[in-house]
């Protein structure tokens, strides 16, 4: 089978800044996988020797509020303008966005400003009146996965591990899931465009794995904003996630790789919920298909301790994958606190007891 690879790169050769970044954190990533953001910053500064500003003053971009329609577009624009103002004050011009919805939102606002300059003036005025701040439009806006993509070969050179099954020597079969707001709203802002987004498959290839295509690759994970956030609506969310799992199951993937904080969480949790409801998993075992984000995966390959980068926060246990990849880890260090004192572990991990 022909896999999706980096062959149409020239069509969507997006510009990704090489250094001197300003980090914009993600509500969901910090909340569910704080270790992922930490390891991203660590890789960038310690392994790759790049500079990135982690500014405590920036806030949510309010994207979840915007897409649930409780934040008006004017407010959304002004909040984004405030982030830009903070960047300006720090002398930063290259934004790196951790959240996919923020990424889509920043671009939506910038495209609007290009087409309707009066909207930009309104945002300037609102921000000035509210905070006294001024902003400049950043020179470059990249998603954090773009940065890892840009340095994927360098990471491969530094990495002691590969996406390879150490028992068989075969490359691991990896399916990817790209967050909708990364490529679907503005295809030219995504590596590889909207239909054959290659930002993750290129990483998989560079790190020794085999990217595996599956029919519902482009389908949404099912977050649906208001559909997940209001409890009685969550069936929408799980229904769409199920569609993806059913579609990828026949390919027997070793791993699901994501670039969106929300998707990473949903694809992990919904496997558990579906197993509880339907009594089945989409893997050959009771554990489920492991789900990792690009930062988590890069961290693992670079030899970070899986429990320091927060992999114990996943419902689908990563241990079987670690074993398959021959990654050294300590099982009993998994549930310890910062002082090294053992904690009571979760009731169970994986999808079925």
């Amino acid at each position: 089978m022909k896999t999706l690879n980096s062959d149409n790169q020239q069509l969507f050769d997006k510009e990704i800044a090489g250094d001197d970044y300003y980090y914009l954190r993600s509500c969901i990533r910090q909340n569910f996988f704080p270790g992922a953001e930490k390891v991203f910053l660590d890789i960038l500064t310690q392994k790759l020797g790049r500079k990135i500003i982690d500014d405590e003053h920036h806030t949510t971009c309010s994207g979840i509020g915007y897409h649930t329609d409780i934040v008006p577009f004017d407010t959304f624009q002004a909040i984004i303008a405030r982030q830009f103002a903070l960047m300006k004050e720090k002398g930063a011009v290259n934004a790196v966005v951790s959240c996919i919805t923020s990424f889509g939102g920043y671009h939506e606002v910038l495209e609007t400003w290009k087409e309707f300059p009066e909207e930009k003036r309104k945002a300037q005025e609102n921000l000035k009146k509210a905070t006294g701040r001024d902003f400049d439009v950043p020179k470059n806006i990249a998603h954090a996965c773009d940065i890892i993509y840009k340095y994927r070969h360098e990471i491969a050179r530094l990495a002691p591990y590969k996406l390879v099954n150490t028992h068989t020597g075969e490359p691991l079969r990896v399916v990817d899931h790209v967050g909708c707001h990364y490529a679907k709203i503005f295809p030219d802002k995504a590596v590889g465009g909207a239909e054959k987004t290659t930002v993750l498959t290129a990483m998989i290839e560079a790190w020794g794995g085999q990217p595996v295509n599956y029919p519902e690759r482009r389908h949404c994970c099912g977050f649906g904003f208001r559909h997940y956030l209001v409890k009685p609506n969550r069936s929408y969310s799980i229904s769409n996630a199920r569609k993806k799992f059913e579609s990828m199951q026949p390919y027997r993937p070793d791993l699901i790789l994501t670039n969106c904080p929300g998707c990473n969480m949903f694809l992990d949790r919904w496997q558990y919920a579906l197993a509880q409801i339907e009594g089945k998993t989409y893997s050959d075992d009771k554990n489920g298909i492991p789900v990792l984000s690009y930062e988590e995966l890069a961290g693992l390959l670079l030899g970070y301790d899986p429990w320091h980068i927060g992999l114990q926060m996943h419902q689908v246990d990563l241990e079987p994958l670690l074993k398959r990849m021959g990654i050294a880890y300590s099982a009993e260090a998994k549930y310890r606190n910062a002082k090294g004192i053992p904690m009571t572990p979760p009731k169970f991990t994986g999808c079925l007891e």
Partner: protein
Amino acid sequence: MTKKKHIAIIGGGIAGLEAGSVLTRQGYKVTIIEKENKTGGLLNHWSSLFPDFSLPGEVLARIQPENPDLTLIHNTCIESIKKENGRFELFDKRHLKLYADALLLATGLSVFDASLKEEYGYGLFINVITSSDFERIHKAGQKLLTAQGDPPKRVAIIHCVGSRDAKVGNGYCSKVCCITGVKQAIAISRMLPECEVFNFYMDLRLYGSKYDALYLEAQKRHQIQFIRGRLSEVSENQDQSLQLKAEDTLQGRPLRMQADMILLLTGLEAARQNENLCKNNHLELDENRFFKSENMQYHRNCSRQEGIFMAGSCICPMSVNETLDSARSAAIEVDNYLTQKER
């Protein structure tokens, strides 16, 4: 007797050939410049013509003009045109220079590159083919087979690929694909009576004489099914069969279908060389990159540049019979121009 006037025709497809044939019979000297090593243009690649399944060879046989006043130059592409002292000078890459009293453009069209419509997977998924691919297979007398070598049990024919699509820069209707879809559906059904054939369309634009009868025949005799909804995406299954997603718009519900093969009805585009020909003179292209007529109602064959005329599908996509009509009417316009100039 005055020296015979000379007309250069760019393009040796059926429009150029037919116009050349009419003009030589009217007493002019004609030179046809063809970029390939063979005349006949796109018609060489088609297996049968709608709506009567007649053979393209029959058309070609009738219009091969044989006349001492007609010269054919092959393998040459005219790159630029210059008007000097009321005459035209034509240049190709190798600095071939040709003089003419009038110029007739019959550059025809090219077929949309279906791989640009990434979501349909042409060039990526092996069982996705185009209408041109199908004509080639059919013409070679081969059976339609999947990449695995089996006769497909279900084929989905997709309309409007590269037509009526602002995303790929083609906002217009290519006009002849709908009827091609019906024709090819019937051809598949004749070839493989067991095969289910579906047409996914947005509007069925069957504008010509006897076209609707073919549609009726497709439904009645061949049980071909028509679903109103534009294809949104194609994905490949593990066994290389395909999954497609569209809306059944008449029901207002999303629809998912598995098919062994998908046939894309590719739209038609103006020839790329047209842009070059517009340099250094008053020729103009319209918003769809076809040649702009002086007046699209009354003077369809006349360009914006005095002495340059157009014939056939370099004006807009046309069927074979329309192209021939257009060629003949262009010949009349050329004759009128040269006769009036004489006086």
